[in-house]
């Protein structure tokens, strides 16, 4: 039996980032991963012979700081594309291409509005950005570090200047639709831009709450000025994280499913694997979602009643399905010379909203809003020569679909293909294999309760000092030695490794 300072449950990108930072600081770290490969939702997996894809696909939130701290480039991390354009599509209309700097193919009015939209949102994103990378403050305890964080937050908002600060305060809880309607006119453009406000959450363009905040988090990356596409799929990023962690001395064991966290006299003493093996450690960090971490791995008997209730009430039902298609050739999309970029099959915000309406009641739309990428156009590691991979996020696929996914899988796939063929006539005949991952599949394949991208809804009530809930929001929990480092912790979901990095820093500071 080996002894480690720290055991990390789950080798998702946050678990790996946390491991790398802790190992770099000299801690003896063991990462236990239930699956046979590292990466979690970012892992690039072969879904058909010769065809590979990852559930997560782009890196809008990744920061240069983490890449440099962990020498990820030395460990093989690279981008297939620095700045992938987003293309707003609508049947019968010519596409609009959106890049960081400008729109192309849009009306003169929309093109003129775009720079101000971009300036304002980028300014807001920059003001908030430092706080994604800090431990959230507690309000009541009067800790100097916490007060400093709160003070700096206020100062950063004030520094926006009076007009922009007022605009931020006004806009911060707007539904995506209201935000887009203020700036733009074209339906497809607005729908495409609204996508990043809501993707992954149980939200649609007309939902209030955290749409703008989610957009700002999604804009927090600084790797490039555009949307970076990792080489080798998102797994290219997590493989580099794993290599980095290993180079610092962390040990990673795959196929090692943790069954429970062991508690001795109210403190963590280690973990027990599903094969009965026990690993001793006085610090255990869970990369699993909060419900799995607290209710399954730890157990309610070790927690107070009201805390347990708050964890069990976290909204963690996923609404995004992932589609991977193996294509015999490059598909043709009407109006596009080449299907490069992030193709938004979202003709209007109403179209997205209607799909959401179906999902709210346990169904799904006939015409499904989709975000489509063909990464093999710029990355030949993902498909055999001359063939291609289509990778699509599809909303909305309710976790708790009426009757269960077994009876809906085929119909949902048919709806997705029918939607695709509106933009790419004849694409069905090019498909040699398809993998559809519903939230139920994500739950089952990645031990992710609810199959939610962000582990728990990213919302005002589960944000910052309330993520996942008060009592567990500073990377500590009511159980001494038990910590969270997954997307259920601050700042939340999205490939950035910040939850893991923040957790590592918090644990190192507390020692």
């Amino acid at each position, binding site marked *: 039996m080996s002894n480690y300072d720290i055991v990390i449950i789950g080798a998702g990108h946050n678990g790996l980032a946390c491991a790398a930072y802790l190992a770099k600081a000299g801690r003896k770290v063991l990462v236990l991963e239930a699956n046979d490969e590292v990466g979690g939702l970012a892992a690039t997996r072969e879904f058909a012979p010769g065809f590979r894809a990852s559930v997560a696909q782009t890196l809008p939130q990744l920061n240069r700081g983490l890449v440099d701290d962990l020498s990820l480039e030395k460990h093989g991390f690279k981008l297939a594309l620095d700045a992938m354009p987003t293309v707003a599509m609508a049947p019968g209309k010519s596409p609009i291409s959106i890049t960081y700097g400008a729109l192309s193919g849009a009306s003169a009015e929309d093109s003129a509005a775009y720079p101000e939209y971009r300036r304002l949102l980028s300014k807001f994103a920059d003001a908030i950005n430092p706080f994604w990378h800090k431990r959230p403050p507690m309000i009541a305890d009067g800790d100097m570090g916490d007060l400093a964080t709160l003070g700096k937050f206020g100062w950063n908002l004030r520094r926006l200047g009076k007009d922009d600060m007022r605009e931020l305060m006004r806009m911060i809880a707007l539904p995506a639709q209201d935000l887009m309607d203020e700036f733009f006119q074209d339906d497809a453009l607005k729908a495409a831009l609204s996508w990043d406000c809501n993707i992954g959450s149980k939200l649609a363009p007309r939902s209030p709450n955290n749409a703008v905040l989610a957009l700002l988090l999604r804009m927090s990356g600084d790797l490039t000025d555009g949307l970076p596409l990792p080489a080798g799929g998102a797994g290219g990023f997590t493989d580099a994280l794993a290599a980095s962690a290993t180079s610092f001395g962390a040990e990673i064991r795959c196929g090692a499913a943790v069954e429970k966290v062991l508690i001795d006299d*109210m403190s963590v003493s280690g973990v027990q694997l599903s094969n009965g093996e026990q690993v001793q450690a006085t610090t255990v960090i869970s990369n699993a979602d909060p419900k799995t971490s607290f*209710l399954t791995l730890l*157990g*309610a*008997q*070790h*927690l*107070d*009643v*009201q*805390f*347990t*209730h708050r964890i*069990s009430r976290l909204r963690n039902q996923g609404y995004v399905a992932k589609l991977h298609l193996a294509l015999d050739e490059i598909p043709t999309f009407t109006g596009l010379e080449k299907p490069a970029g992030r193709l938004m099959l979202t003709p209007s915000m109403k179209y997205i909203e209607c799909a959401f309406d179906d999902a709210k009641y346990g169904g799904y739309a006939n015409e499904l809003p989709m975000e489509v990428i063909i990464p093999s156009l710029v990355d030949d590691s993902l498909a055999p020569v001359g063939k291609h991979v289509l990778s699509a996020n599809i909303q909305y696929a309710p976790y708790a679909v009426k009757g269960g996914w077994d009876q809906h899988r085929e119909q949902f796939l048919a709806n997705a293909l029918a939607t695709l063929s509106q933009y790419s006539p004849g694409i069905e005949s090019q498909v040699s294999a398809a993998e559809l991952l519903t939230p139920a599949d994500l739950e089952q394949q990645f031990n992710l309760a609810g199959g939610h991208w962000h582990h728990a809804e990213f919302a005002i009530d589960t944000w910052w000092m309330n993520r996942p809930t008060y*009592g567990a929001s500073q990377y500590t929990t*009511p159980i001494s030695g038990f910590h969270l480092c997954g997307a259920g912790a601050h700042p939340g979901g999205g490939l950035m490794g910040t939850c893991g990095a923040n957790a590592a820093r918090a644990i190192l500071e507390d020692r």
Partner: protein
Amino acid sequence: MPMQANLQAADTIDHVHEGVIYSPFHRRTSAKNINQQWSVWNGYASTKYYADAHLEYFSTRNTCGVFDVSPMRKYRIKGPDAEAMLNRMVTRDVTSQAVDTVAYNIWCTDAGKLIDDGTLFRVSEDDFWLCAADPNFDWLQLSAVGFPNLEITDISEDLASLALQGPTSCALLKAMGFSGIENATPFSIMRFPFGAGEITISRTGYTGDLGYELWVDPADAELLWDQLFSVGQVYGIQPLGEDSLEMARIEAGFLAPDVDFHGSLHTVDRGHDHSPLELALGWIINFKKGHFSGRAALAKEKAAGKHRRLIKLDIEGNKPAENSILYCDKGCKKTIGYVTSAMWSPVVKANIAYGLVEGQYADGPIWAEIYHQKELRWVRKLAQCTRVTKPFWAPERARQTPPPDC
């Protein structure tokens, strides 16, 4: 098996109940309630006093008295997870509670503040009853989150219950044919055939004296009452109203919700709820049993040792210190707390009270500011208080098995 809460169907609930609910004993209690003096307890008509509160009170000390506890809320928690769930909810060690025993228990919020108290009956390995003066279904459901293999049922309407309390109570039960009841130890449970089914008898009560609580099918309620009062005549049986029970419980040292403490879930103002440490309930907080809800907060509070204290007071004179403010000096310069319950105790022959005082003053001098009337004229007096550490009333017979004269 998913966690199941057995709730009444919404359309069968009288959501806006108009008028009082009647206990299964109501026809009998009403007949004896010669002055028709009622209060309302959980919506039920509950007798304040039948004829004379003091006579009724004396029956608990000299003969025996019967109090209708049917309005109590009773919950059944059953299933493989029941023990673990309850052990995490209450402060005592449920895992060491034997089958067919009862344990007085309390349950707290995460912050270690008292929600309520009640008695936990272990009727089999995985089957418990929880009885409390006030409704607690919502807290039970919250506490069951994370314990999927159990069922919670409100059985309040399924049990008619009487408390039979006083020195002749055992002899009376024996005379009714429940032979062997004399072997029931305090906080144990026995069962006997009765009426169409069974009677459960627990050696429990709220008077501090020898006594039992009797639990039957509501259909057998009147039969039980009639037998008690026919056989009980020679045992000096009296019906007890709330007023007499209140006297007995103060002497016995039992807390009353909404009198001695304010349940945390109903408390609005910060600091107006109570930790069990304040309420002298430290003896039932088991810090060694493993985790329970509120444990961390209570351990912290205990270590700090700065909490308020509910203490027993023997007060000079004979004027009950009801609603009194307490001071550490006769000049009333420093307020240190207040009286929660007070009475002239006929059996102890002392002016007794419970005072909730700031911790640092608990061992120093304490003065009570008492207002009382002399033929309508209000008189104020300062009375010196002596702290009492032993129970006011704890007769030997309450602990003896078999009890004397049985």
